């Protein structure tokens, strides 16, 4: 039960961040917001897969998938923070 609450909270936070960042990108076309939006969308997906992993598909280990999604998401954020020209 605690697990479900924690996982949903994390997914909800990522979702909130993704929504705010995409909204900001649409308004300003700021590239750092685009890549940040990609990152938090990915983290949201990773958290959603975590929920599926732990609560739905309990016989399958989705950990490597979650790790790949997290890595790609963070790489996108890093790219945006360092390379985007405003």
């Amino acid at each position, binding site marked *: 039960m605690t697990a479900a609450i924690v996982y949903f909270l994390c997914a909800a936070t990522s979702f909130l961040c993704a929504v*705010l960042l995409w909204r900001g990108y649409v308004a300003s076309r700021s590239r*750092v917001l685009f890549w940040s939006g990609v990152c938090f969308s990915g983290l949201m997906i990773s958290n959603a897969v975590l929920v599926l992993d732990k609560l739905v598909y309990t016989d399958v280990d989705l950990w490597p998938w979650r790790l790949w999604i997290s890595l790609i998401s963070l790489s996108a954020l890093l790219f945006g923070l360092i390379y985007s020209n405003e």
Partner: protein
Amino acid sequence: MTGAAIPDELRRFLLSGALSVPHVEAILQLRRGAGQPCSAQALAARIYVRTARAAELLTELCEIGVARLLESEPPCYLYAPATAELAGLLDALEYAYGAQLVAVTRLIHSAEERKALNFAAAFRLRKDPT
């Protein structure tokens, strides 16, 4: 070591983020060409970037209104400020870049601050101008 202050209009122009350091170097090279057309390849050799990057810089300078594309093969660019005001700004830029390199590059690099401000601003739930 401050010397003469950078003119306000130039300061605002640099803070607007319209130009990066490679853009400024490209502009100075075009100006030094004294009206001679400059290809992306020639610019790349002078400012030590890849030809593709030089072509991007020149295209962006055309969009800002600093350069003009000539219909030639290969495509060449001419220093051609769109307005007298811009021409004046670029004169001031060349002088300032020579006399106060550190101050000018600091203003250009505050674009990073803009990235940070954009990121933080996105998280304001209500869009108010604070």
